[in-house]
């Protein structure tokens, strides 16, 4: 619905929009999370089945190298960035007086 060129909060949504909105309903995010975890398990199992013929770094010949690298690097990166680096360099948004 248009009001003065703006969409009102109860605007008419496309089918895709309705579907996406429905995924935010209570209970739905949990289904998506479970599907994601199941997919990860499947990928990890497949990692055992498919051999890496050309390991580049030595350790990547092991089956769980890449899952461990992805998880470990992700956890360390987020922790170091948000808990160590940002508290040191964080300033108010208008620190330079540009805004």
């Amino acid at each position, binding site marked *: 619905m248009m009001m003065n060129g703006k969409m009102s909060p109860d605007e008419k949504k496309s089918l895709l929009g309705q579907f996406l909105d429905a995924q935010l309903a209570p209970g739905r995010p949990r289904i998506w999370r479970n599907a994601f*975890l199941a997919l990860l398990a499947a990928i990890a199992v497949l990692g055992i089945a498919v051999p890496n013929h050309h390991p580049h770094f030595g350790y990547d010949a092991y089956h769980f190298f890449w899952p461990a690298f992805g998880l470990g690097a*992700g956890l360390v990166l987020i922790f170091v960035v948000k808990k160590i680096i940002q508290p040191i360099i964080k300033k108010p948004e208008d620190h330079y007086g540009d805004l």
Partner: protein
Amino acid sequence: MATSDFYHPSLAFLMMAAVLPFLPGNRRWKWLLLLPPLAAIYGAFGNAPGDHLTISWLGQTLRLGHVDALSQVFAQVFAVMSLAGLIFSLHVNDKAQHMAALLYVTGGFGCLLAGDYLTLFVFWELMSIGSAFLVMLNRTRESVLAAFRYFLYHVAGGLLLLAGLLLRYRLTGSFEFGPIDPAAATYADYLILAGFCVNAAVVPLHAWLPDAYPRGTVTGSVFMCAYTTKTAVYVLARAFPGWDVLAVAGTVMAVYGVVYASMENNARRILSYHIVSQVGYMVAGIGVGTYMTLNGASAHAYAHILYKGLLFMATGAVLYSAGTQKLDELGGLAGRLPWVMVCYMVAALSISGMPLFNGFVSKTMTIAGAAEAHRTLVALGLELAAVGTFISVGLKLPYFAFWGGKPPDRARELRPIPANMYVGMALLSILCLAQGLYPEMLYRFLPFQEAVGHFVPWTAWNVLQALMLLGFSGLAFYLMRKVIAPHKALNLDFDWFYRLVGRAVIFLVSRPLAAIDGVWTLVWDKVGVRTLRGLGLLSSWFDRAAIDGVVDGSAKGVKGLGSLAALLQNGRLQHYLGLMVVLGLLVFAFFWYGL
């Protein structure tokens, strides 16, 4: 500019920029904006290799149309991107914004086809001017200040390049623009390298980018994210392949960019830091310098221009519609802007190197090339950056803007997004997917065809490796989603040092130099002005009595000219820049068409 087997892609952009102010105001002129990109696509795909346009000027031979496999692959993606970018901008009525974009793209193509450093320098500077306007024309105080900083910084970078190319000319007697042997490099080559590194946003010279790009116009930043840094990647690939320092610098860039992107709150600044990171892959590939990594750098530049343009389009569309680009103010927009979200995700998965999308066939080539060249730390650094890329662009940004990261912001009024913006986004989405599914579309244009067969992206292991890396970094995000939640903040970066230098210069000018100037003015006022006044009275009498008597009205004419010159000196940077472009173009038009 155009012969039977050559068309310079800059030509129509330059002509359109020149005639645009004079076209009638019924807005039908907008459709003409699509002609230069179409002509550029024709030229970029059809030009035969060789030197096509040489001009003798001041005893030098300027080579404006140097076409080879390397320049061609960049010219092709520049042309495609210019079409998508101008379609995305078609709703904009402000002719000044279109002119700035057209001149900027003119400069980009000019750099790609430059066969000598003088030609390169002229187009290099044209890009700086065009892009400064794309930031300034956002017309907020914040943007004008950012544009001023951006321009000052790029002038400094341009001066490094100019000093380097002139000193190089003294040493070698040539302005030829070609590969430089790192073993025989001189200080002049390092100056040129430094000038290129400013535009490539090599850390620590990078801070202009996340300062300016988030403050550009919605459509202007779409152009800027594609051309400046990738032109720099191209010139680095042409002049500095195999320079080891670039392999290290590129890896540092790749990791540095994701670190800053992971803490940012501003959507377009997150993407800006990811330009630094992604250009790092290309710079590292150039530094390693094997055929495979140079191919990887070119392929990644191609893919990057498409998906990064799409990312800036989608976040620009959110900014256009919702009026903000800050993640802490957005939330749950997926249902309200579903197609923007879909296009954004195509680009986000592309930049992350997810199978099916074009980043998967370009990024992996550079990493595999680095690993095969036994640059283990470079390859591992790039893999680490891939984890951070997926976490910040593939998950954090959409989680907090589109999905359930925060309660949906249903009260925010959304401005309808024009159809042309969707068309621009759809075009790039299709290309990102097509290149991922059919890598041959991209690989057949790579500069070193003999090395293309050494890398096959679509193998079971490569797909699985990407899924394992990205899937489990997704798990890390899920576990840490509350830690990574964005908040309003400014994160200090190297621009702190740039501003320090700026403040030091202002202090120098406003205190010691101003004091010296004050004393000098006093002395001048007491002694010089009185003397001059006396001389002036004398010459005025002579002028009236003698000169105007001989040449009727010359004094009046000179006075009029003086008043006009005074009008032009109004102290406004944008007027000076505009005048500079016009005069520069007039000089070049004279030589291009006159000789």
